[in-house]
């Protein structure tokens, strides 16, 4: 094995790839050849580091120097200064926004990483995901060795049960229990399925794991297959994740070459193989019964449960289905033991959870925190707070199935049960932060619009009920809400939750119900006063010209509706009955004299 004195880790995650990391890697490779450094320095393409907002990200080891927002033009300087002469290029390093000063901080020392605990993401941004040897070096396939050489299936299940691991795909069902059911079920063939459909808008936890550490999922599925007696595995991944699909394909091929998938794995007599199935991106196909129908080649529609997949799943055979992140925990639990896992997190929610942090937050990206961490810590310590000095209003968790959590509840610990109690849910890990400029009615409308679009139409409450709710919300944001609308929304929401066929419909009203619960006054302002307190809903806004107006007439000239009148050098006025709220006058005004209210 060659000795390299330095390694340049370039992020090949989706975020950084789309901001040009492919070009950067190419340039590094050219430049180190040019300077004759290619025998001493290695360029590695890794998975997502988590701090996508700072992308493209490049880390240089052994120093661990963290370069952010790297451009192709910067590469030459990093090579000629840092790699050749050993001088860190300070002005290109990550600037910790909180500290407000420029310093070349190493990856581990920045606030974003300090409160995190990386189990699922431990290899993301550290190894080359297309190189099985690097995974093996970081204890990869050690858990599989342990299981196949020294454990019985029932013992594996017991460890997972004892660990307290719960499903990370949404519902939070205990994973060990699920495996136990599948193991107890009889059938001539059993299947192991990995749910990598990840349909929540804004969520990309599973994608990052698949892109950054695909072997962890393969290893875990093989272990799970051994535990429940399944010999065939499927990974159902959305076709919109091309990088993840490609890395999975490479990983499966390499694992087969090493005999870690296929017949007689590690000489144990156990056979297991995995194939990939591509989903077309329908949200409902993430629901387990719809997902299995889709793998079978049928329409991706859910069916009622029971029978549960453990009894009658894929091709009518006993099937175990888990989420990507759930699987990614398994090898670590096997190696380090159930007690170790239980020592992280809280009593009823053990381990960590990965969240995709987005919206009005400084450090958008991927974070993995121990369960029980407070929302406040995620938003302020890890996320770096709200940009532009704005005021925090709410955070949405659980995507279209979840709810909004207001500022008063920022100190609750993140756990399955506490989140459900306050009307939201853990979900798969989307976390969208909202500030004072976000209208909560509009947010609820956004999520409901999504579920209405994605409803498969099989059951009436979801197909028709959610549409009726959306119509009422549309009315409210357009200033046509009437008294009684809120009560109607609440009643409809409760009925849909109680009667819909699958999880999609059963949770679709949550964003509406939770915002009505915590932000009722905002809804009432829309309905009674025809006013949007966040100044967001266009239909409820009026344009005013303040006394900053110098009477330059620019606004009157640009107004397409002739709604502005006034004399030169005197304050102009907008006729709100004529105004069509196009905003052209605001753009034109050089004095900032036109306000939306």
């Amino acid at each position, binding site marked *: *094995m060659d*000795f390299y004195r330095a390694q340049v880790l370039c992020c090949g995650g989706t975020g950084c790839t789309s901001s040009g990391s492919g070009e950067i890697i190419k340039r590094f490779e050219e430049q180190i050849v040019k300077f004759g450094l290619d025998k001493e320095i290695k360029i590695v393409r890794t998975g997502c580091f988590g701090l996508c907002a700072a992308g493209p990200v490049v880390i240089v080891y052994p*120093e*661990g120097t963290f370069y952010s927002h790297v451009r192709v033009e910067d590469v030459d300087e990093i090579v000629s200064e840092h790699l050749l002469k*050993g*001088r860190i290029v300070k002005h290109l390093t990550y600037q910790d926004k909180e500290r407000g000063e420029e310093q070349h901080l190493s990856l581990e020392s920045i606030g974003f990483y300090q409160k995190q605990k990386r189990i699922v993401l431990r290899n993301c941004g550290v190894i080359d995901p297309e190189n099985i040897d690097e995974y093996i070096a*970081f204890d990869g396939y050690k858990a599989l060795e342990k299981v196949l050489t020294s454990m019985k299936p029932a013992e594996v299940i017991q460890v997972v049960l004892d660990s307290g691991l719960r499903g990370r795909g949404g519902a939070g069902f205990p994973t060990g229990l699920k495996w136990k059911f599948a193991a107890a079920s009889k059938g001539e063939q059993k299947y192991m399925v990995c749910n990598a459909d990840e349909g929540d808008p804004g969520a990309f936890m599973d994608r990052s794991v698949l892109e950054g550490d695909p072997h962890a999922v393969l290893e875990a599925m093989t272990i799970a297959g051994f535990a429940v007696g399944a010999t065939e595995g499927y990974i159902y991944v959305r076709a919109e994740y091309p990088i993840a699909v490609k890395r999975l394909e490479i990983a499966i091929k390499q694992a087969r070459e090493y005999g870690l998938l296929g017949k007689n794995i590690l000489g144990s007599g156990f056979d297991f193989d995995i194939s990939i199935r591509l989903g077309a991106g329908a949200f409902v196909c993430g629901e387990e019964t719809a997902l299995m129908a889709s793998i079978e080649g049928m329409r991706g529609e859910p069916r009622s449960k029971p029978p549960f997949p453990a009894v009658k799943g894929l091709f009518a055979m006993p099937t175990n289905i888990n989420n990507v992140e759930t699987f990614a925990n398994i090898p670590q639990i096997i190696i380090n033991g159930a007690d170790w896992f239980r020592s992280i997190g809280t009593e009823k929610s053990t381990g960590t959870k990965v969240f995709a942090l987005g919206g009005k937050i400084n450090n958008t990206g991927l974070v993995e925190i121990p369960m029980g961490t407070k929302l406040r810590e995620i938003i302020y310590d890890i996320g770096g707070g709200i940009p532009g000095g704005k005021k925090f209003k709410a955070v949405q968790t659980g995507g279209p199935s979840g709810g909004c959590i207001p500022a008063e509840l920022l100190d609750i610990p993140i756990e399955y049960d506490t989140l459900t109690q306050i009307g939201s849910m853990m979900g798969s890990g989307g976390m969208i932060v909202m500030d004072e400029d976000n209208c909560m009615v509009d947010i609820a409308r956004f999520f409901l619009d999504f579920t209405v679009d994605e409803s498969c139409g099989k059951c009436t409450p979801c197909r028709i009920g959610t549409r009726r709710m959306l119509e009422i919300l549309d009315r409210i944001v357009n200033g046509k809400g009437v008294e009684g609308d809120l009560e109607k929304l609440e009643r409809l929401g409760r009925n849909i939750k109680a009667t819909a066929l699958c999880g999609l419909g059963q949770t679709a009203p949550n964003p509406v119900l939770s915002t009505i619960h915590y932000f009722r006054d905002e809804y009432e302002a829309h309905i009674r006063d025809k006013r949007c307190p966040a100044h967001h809903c266009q239909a409820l806004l009026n344009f005013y010209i303040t006394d900053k107006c110098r009477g330059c007439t620019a606004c009157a000239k640009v107004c397409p509706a002739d709604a502005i009148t006034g004399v030169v050098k005197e304050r102009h006025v907008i006729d709100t009955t004529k105004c069509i709220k196009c905003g052209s006058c605001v753009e034109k005004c050089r004095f900032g004299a036109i306000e939306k209210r």
Partner: protein
Amino acid sequence: MKSIAELEAIRQKTLERVAYRKDADSDIRVVVGMATCGIAAGARPVMLAFMDEIRKRNLQNVTVSQTGCIGMCRLEPMVDVIVPGQGKVTYVKLNPNMVPRIVTEHIVNGNPVLEYSIGASEDQ
């Protein structure tokens, strides 16, 4: 198909290459002064000699990195060898022929080569 022993071999072999992405604190560090003065005085061949020697002896837990000018340009090429818990030894006026001795005596056996060190040089 790979056996468990073969996997372990891959693990060990690859770890040598990737280990310092894990924890750098336990490593012995060889830091070569590579500013203009160092390079002009021949620091690059010295650094390559270190890397060569480390590769030949298959040493783990040694990293070679570079640094800028320390301000004593007349003593270049200069190299610091830092063994955790033992502090830093600065070697001066090195050439590639001196490197194998430093690697054997200091890095492998823990005995700094005093006659190459800055103290010895300045006493003369």
